């Protein structure tokens, strides 16, 4: 991470334990989370359902008190606040929800103005700010419609504008695109990236969709069973073949059936010498094997090519490559910085 950027969110040993409803073992939702998210970037937090994402959001917004640990947002420990101080601190954090959670009784403009109303901003200033936000998120002409009269993408634009209204330091997005179709998802993600550029705001996106992370995030953090199991810049995480996330960030299509040969999965993003999949094929041929690329994914993330291919290897006799050949080739590839694993048939 860039050391020049200050942290805007710091989690320090964050734990949240819920007492079991039936008096059994308590449920550990967050099991000691340490996390530093720096200002002005888009951070992705991913995890399966039950990994602790929702609890993390509720702790960040102060809706849930942590069992122990610190939740610092822009230098304030939210976990230690109550009452009016907590309500004030919440204004540093804009929230965007999966289903937007707009009020049906208010028009788009009235929904956007809501955080300002709560903060006691005078009407004239409120109206000026709303006009600005409507323009910013591309909703001009629809601001007097009620949410029911807007499309899913427009509703989420209102949700984002509302999240930004009180000029928070952080925009926290909880599954912002999970209810949207592919095209709308891309528009919303582009909007978030654009807002970061224009406003310099820190964006935290909590999602289970790897595509979202690939498309807009600068950093990614994996949450598993209430712990952070991997965190870092997207480029580094995607290129790290040993980490749990690279496989999900760069998924492989299934190997076609009927392929003869020993299947070897090769991640070559880290290698200095083997830069393309052809390099891998040639390396296999130098060992006297016939190599065929049967599946592969190549992505450019942050200007760096990251690739993963599966090779079907056969010996000179046309039968699946034997253990000696495989061991020799794997050794050479490992030497060159490629991570190679045999796939069990």
């Amino acid at each position: 991470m860039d050391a020049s950027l200050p942290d805007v969110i710091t989690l320090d040993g964050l734990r949240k334990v819920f007492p079991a409803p039936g008096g059994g073992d308590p449920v550990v939702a967050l099991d000691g989370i340490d996390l530093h998210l720096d200002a002005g970037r888009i951070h992705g937090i991913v995890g399966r359902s039950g990994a602790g994402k929702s609890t993390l959001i509720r702790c960040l917004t102060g809706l849930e008190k942590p069992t122990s640990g610190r939740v610092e947002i822009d230098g304030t420990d939210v976990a230690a606040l109550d009452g009016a101080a907590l309500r004030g601190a919440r204004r540093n954090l804009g929230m965007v929800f999966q289903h937007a959670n707009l009020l049906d009784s208010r028009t788009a403009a009235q929904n956007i103005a809501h955080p300002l109303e709560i903060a006691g901003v005078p009407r004239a200033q409120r109206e000026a700010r709303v006009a600005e936000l409507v323009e910013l998120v591309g909703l001009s002409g629809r601001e007097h419609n009620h949410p029911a009269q807007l499309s899913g993408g427009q509703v989420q634009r209102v949700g984002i504008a509302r999240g930004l209204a009180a000029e928070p330091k952080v925009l926290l997005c909880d599954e912002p695109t999970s209810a949207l179709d592919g095209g709308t998802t891309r528009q919303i993600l582009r909007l978030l990236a654009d807002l970061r550029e224009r406003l310099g705001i820190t964006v935290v996106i909590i999602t289970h969709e790897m595509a979202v992370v690939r498309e807009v995030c600068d950093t990614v953090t994996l949450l598993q069973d209430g712990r952070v199991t991997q965190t870092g810049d997207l480029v580094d995480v995607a290129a790290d073949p040993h980490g749990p996330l690279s496989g999900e960030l760069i998924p492989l299509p299934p190997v076609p059936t009927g392929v003869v040969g020993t299947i070897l999965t090769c991640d070559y993003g880290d290698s200095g010498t083997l830069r393309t999949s052809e390099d891998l094929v040639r390396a296999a041929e130098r060992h006297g094997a016939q190599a065929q690329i049967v599946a592969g994914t190549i992505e450019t993330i942050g200007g760096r090519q990251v690739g993963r291919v599966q090779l079907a290897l056969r010996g000179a006799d046309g039968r699946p490559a034997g253990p000696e050949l495989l061991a020799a080739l794997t050794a050479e590839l490992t030497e060159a910085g490629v991570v190679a694993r045999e796939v069990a048939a």
Partner: protein
Amino acid sequence: MIETLQEWAQNRAFTEWTGTGSLWWSILVTLYMTAGTMVLTVLLGLPLGVALFETESSPRPAVRAANRVVGFVVNVLRSFPFFILIIALIPLSQLLLGRSTGPNAAMLALVIASVPFAARLFELNLREIPAGKIEAVQMMGATRWQVIRQVLIPEALPGIIGSITTTTIAVIGYTAMAGSVNSGGLGQLAYNRGYTGYQTEIIVATVILLVLIVIAVQWIGSRLGRAVDHRARTA
């Protein structure tokens, strides 16, 4: 047929304008009792419904205990047959109003019966608001009072208007029973003159009028409810 109608039209209930024997006066008394009861029911029942909703899962045990106690009282009052309630309340109206008959004495019983009824309906209306919408506003830094004023009431308003309509219609039915304490109104007229006095024309006229009043209340309620409803229409 025509002769019967002409004969009916001669009934004093139709020709006199005032007094408990007049149909027209009785309509006004029924409308007065219903309107007065409903104003008090909304003023008392809506805060009670909000209180029941807000305190149900309070983190403070004392607040939760109070919720259970009030909820129990509400249930007891709701399970009282209205006819029994109005008679049981005669001493109370004697004490508070100095008399146990007339529309105002009846309204005491009507309010005590309809407030718990309406409060439970309002509580249900509030429950239909998705929790995420309330939390979204809490996350903006809203106080509890701001949440009530800016989220709970406006978001539940279409349902609340429906509940007020339903309660109003129930109260119109109760006012008829209030005739038993000489409240006046259409119910008493129908019972005293129509049923006890064998004047069929009065029974027919009061039934038709009550049906028309109920239809009108429902029509107004539905129109108002639709006017404030901005939720998506789901097929």
